[in-house]
């Protein structure tokens, strides 16, 4: 089967899956993973995940929240990526003006698009630093456009995510990482179509265990993990190595072994409400999260 993993090949979320596949953890669990499906846009990935042969996916939390609010039948079964350590903010090499966040005053800051995670992060960051209204924020669409805009002077700072950053490191100057301002925010979670989950609870349990092994392998063997990532993502080994090292160097957990970080999930929810990406009001996690498929040592009661 093919597993749905958001941004597989272009983001860091998929590395545990690449390792688990390469190391045979999925096979041990009795799942024959032949490849990974991904697509642009969180909503698409959620839909794809629910429509697949194995209706499971590690997908973006904002899309899951939106889907849940629209009444899609899905259950969140494990935590995914718990921080934004893969997101760095950079300026041109020759532009020495911005050294700290306070230097942003009066400058132009690029983020991907309105109501996105970068919108939210920049909003929170400016708020925390009392810069709201003093920085010109501009939506740029994507990393390629952002980098082009940076070169051309359309923005003074923009974001780049790993592993692209590992590739572009020589061309731009790193100023800070998103975790500097928002250390805990859950980016992705694992979801399953509820109907399927009821029928195949054991399969999902095994899958979560296989992924967990992948996460643990990265911690223990970053070098080998990088080699696997380079192969699966078709990028140079040094970029893979660099990106994994960078991620691991950042304080806090990035790849969750499966457990949930409810505070991080709330941060995401509140952030999204701040940029009006989802409707206001409380969101009852317990209605959608089911911890019963996690290994016992990872279970934690959701606070309501």
């Amino acid at each position: 089967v093919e597993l749905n993993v958001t941004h597989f090949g272009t983001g860091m979320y998929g590395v545990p899956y690449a390792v688990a596949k390469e190391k045979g953890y999925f096979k041990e669990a009795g799942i024959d993973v032949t490849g990974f499906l991904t697509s642009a846009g969180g909503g698409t990935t959620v839909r794809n995940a629910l429509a697949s042969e194995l209706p499971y996916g590690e997908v973006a939390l904002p899309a899951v929240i939106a889907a849940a609010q629209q009444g899609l039948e899905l259950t969140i079964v494990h935590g995914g990526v718990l921080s934004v350590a893969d997101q760095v903010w950079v300026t041109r090499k020759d532009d020495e003006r911005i050294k700290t966040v306070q230097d942003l005053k009066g400058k132009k800051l690029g983020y991907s698009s309105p109501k996105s995670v970068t919108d939210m992060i920049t909003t929170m960051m400016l708020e925390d630093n009392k810069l709201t209204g003093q920085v010109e924020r501009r939506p740029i669409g994507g990393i390629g456009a952002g980098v082009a805009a940076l070169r051309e002077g359309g923005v003074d700072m923009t974001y780049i995510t790993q592993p692209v950053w590992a590739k572009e490191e020589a061309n731009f100057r790193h100023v800070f990482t998103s975790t500097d301002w928002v250390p805990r925010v859950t980016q992705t979670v694992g979801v399953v179509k509820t109907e399927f989950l009821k029928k195949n609870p054991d399969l999902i349990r095994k899958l979560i265990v296989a992924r967990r092994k992948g996460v643990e392998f990265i911690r223990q063997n970053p070098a080998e993990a990088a080699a696997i990532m380079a192969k699966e993502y078709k990028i140079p080994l040094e970029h893979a190595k660099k990106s994994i090292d960078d991620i691991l160097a950042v304080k806090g957990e990035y790849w969750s072994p499966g457990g949930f970080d409810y505070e991080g999930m709330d941060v995401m929810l509140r952030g999204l409400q701040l940029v009006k990406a989802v409707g206001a009001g409380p969101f009852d996690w317990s209605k959608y999260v089911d911890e019963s498929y996690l290994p016992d040592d990872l279970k934690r009661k959701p606070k309501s």
Partner: protein
Amino acid sequence: MRAAADVDVPVPASPPAVRRAGRLGDSALVLLGLLALWQFGSWVVGAAVLPAPAATLAKLWAIMSSSDFGGHAWETGRAFLSALAIAFAAGLAIGLLLGAHRLSAEVAEPILVALYAIPKITLYPIILLLFGLGISAKIAFGVIHGIVPVAVFTMAAVRNIRPVYLRAARAMRLTPVQTAGRIMLPAALPGIVSGLRIGFSLTLLGTLIGEMFASQRGIGYLLVKAMETNDVATVVALATLLIVVATIVSGALLALNRRLDRSPKPGR
């Protein structure tokens, strides 16, 4: 008496071989001009934004010789050829029908033109919802891009068949099937081929757009992945590959059309 085949034909203004050589020379010049423009553009905006021709060709070569390129090309090719077959067959059928039946043409033409004008990319959610992920969505995407121009051109070509050909067919007592095969088809062919030229390109575009959003393999997927990772060299290399392929096919269809279109040209 000699057989018809080896009878003298009035000598055309210039031998075809000479003309063809001249045309190729001109094409080569235009190609050189475009390359120069490209090189110049690359200098202006910087190689990081628009890689130079030579670098692009090297990159293209690297992409094409990588082990999994064949798989991607095959994936795109399969989806594209299916889409092309459907777009051509359905477009021709619709066009022939509308061309032959005046009232349905009057009813359908404005609808077709309006459909043509819709930004089809916005239909991608619907297509995805209807066809799910995988090859069928890509095919559907290719088809919705290509079918309308094929149908519209075919319809116009059939409608513009000179009525006297059909009267001649009746005077020679051809059956309806014979009339369709021996008169209508050859008479409308040049117009139909023009439609196929545009249809070819747009179907390819549609298939690629489909792949960009709803696929894990194929040239469109490579393109969108390169876009996401800011891999400009790959983007430009793939775009070059596409235009080269489409131009070769378009040129071949054009040559075919020049051979088919024997109707007298207007003007002195």
